[in-house]
């Protein structure tokens, strides 16, 4: 079995994981129901239960590859945290009152596994389409936009000094990164160029720079039918930037998963902004957030583009799922045009 670059048998992997649980969390660490949830060339997510002092505990294991199979020419354009940094952000988030997975172990060399960490496993729904559209989430939907506002205010209150490894990125730098990716592939699309120019001509004047999640959206959270948001996931591109980035990204149409409401398909901008204002004591300028929603459309279009063109670099083997995402580039470009023409 090859996982994230290291070839060991599933048996050996399980044995090392047992030892890691025993070492970091508590003995005996016996593993049950080990399942790979997601996997790629550079990282994988596993679900498992483990016996800790006689009680069966649910866990998640995140592993990052310690080496990339092929050098990625665009590595570093979007700052990715290491597994340890990712874990430290979540620890700081929990300390700051943000619902994030509780880190139970950060893996080290003696564990004989790739860099990674173990967190508790939170029950609930993580599929965006279900949260946005299933009848059984109607009650949750009615509170989730407000919950997002409160949670984001707490994230933006985190102290950057405690997380010195986070990379600051201004709007200008983020925009330059998009040009860099587009030019790497020599891709020339008028609709995309229009979006990039629009962003360049409308950069926000007075950003409030804070810790930002970077990928805060429906699809990266766990929700319950009765209680709404239980946990925010996927902290690995957290950074320092314009706080409104997170609110804008959350409103991008793709993350509504077919739901009718602008915030994640589940709620209104009014609820999001009101809760954010109440929790932060600051006022939200809807036009400022609209810039980041528009920029979010362009950024997602560039990500789709990248997934569709990466095979040309041979940085990844061809995959039906990734190449299908490549065909989604025009969706956010259409949404962008409607947004700036007030046809959204």
């Amino acid at each position, binding site marked *: 079995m090859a996982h994230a670059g290291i070839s060991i048998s599933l048996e050996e992997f399980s044995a090392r994981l047992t030892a890691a649980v025993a070492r970091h969390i508590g003995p005996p660490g016996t593993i049950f129901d080990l399942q790979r949830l997601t996997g790629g060339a550079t990282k994988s997510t596993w679900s498992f239960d483990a016996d800790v002092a006689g009680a069966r505990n649910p866990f998640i294991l995140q592993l990052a590859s310690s080496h990339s199979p092929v050098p990625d020419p665009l590595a570093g354009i979007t700052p990715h945290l290491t597994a340890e940094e990712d874990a430290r952000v979540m620890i700081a988030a929990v300390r700051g009152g943000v619902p994030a997975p509780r880190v139970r172990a950060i893996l080290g060399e003696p564990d004989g596994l790739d860099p990674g960490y173990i967190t508790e496993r939170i029950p609930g729904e993580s599929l965006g389409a279900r949260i946005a559209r299933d009848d059984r989430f109607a009650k949750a939907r009615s509170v989730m936009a407000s919950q997002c506002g409160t949670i984001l205010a707490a994230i933006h209150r985190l102290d950057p000094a405690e997380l010195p490894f986070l990379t600051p990125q201004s709007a200008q730098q983020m925009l330059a990164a998009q040009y860099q990716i587009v030019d790497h592939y020599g891709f*020339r*699309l*008028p*609709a*995309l*160029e*229009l979006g*990039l*120019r*629009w962003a360049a*001509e409308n950069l926000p004047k007075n950003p409030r720079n804070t810790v930002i999640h970077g990928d805060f959206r429906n699809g990266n959270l766990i929700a319950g039918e009765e209680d709404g948001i239980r946990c925010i996931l996927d902290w690995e591109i957290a950074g320092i930037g314009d706080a409104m980035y997170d609110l804008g990204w959350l409103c991008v*149409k793709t993350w509504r998963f*077919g739901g009718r409401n602008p915030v994640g398909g589940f709620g209104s901008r009014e609820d999001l902004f009101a809760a954010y204002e109440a929790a932060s004591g600051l006022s939200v300028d809807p036009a400022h957030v609209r810039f980041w929603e528009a920029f979010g459309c362009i950024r997602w279009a560039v990500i789709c583009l990248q997934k569709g063109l990466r095979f040309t670099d041979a940085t990844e083997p061809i995959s*039906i*799922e990734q*190449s*299908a995402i490549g*065909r*989604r580039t*025009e*969706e956010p*470009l*259409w949404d962008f*045009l409607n947004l700036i*023409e007030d046809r959204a």
Partner: protein
Amino acid sequence: MPEIKPAATILLEAAVKFLEEELAPTLPAGYFRFQTRVTINVLNTVRRELELRAAHAAAERERLSAMLGRAGEVEEMSAELAGRIRDGGISIDDPGLRTHVRQSLADTLAINNPKWVGR
């Protein structure tokens, strides 16, 4: 040489029919059912591309010709337009540009994901 039969679009329809009606229903929810759904969508996209692309390209070529004031091929004219947008040679608020971009996006979406327009 006579046309190849069945048409490529028919082959794609047949492939989708097999996956959707015979294979997918046997699969439990999870990785393989999801990937099968993705594959079905991709095959439908290719079929729509074969059916629609030529007409779209012809229309796009006419629009680009009108905007650039010259004849040419779709790819290179579109690349030139992209360059003009980037370097400010054309205003992003130009109504003709907006109409062209909107139509081009609508055409591409008709191939890649017809449900997205009007969502």
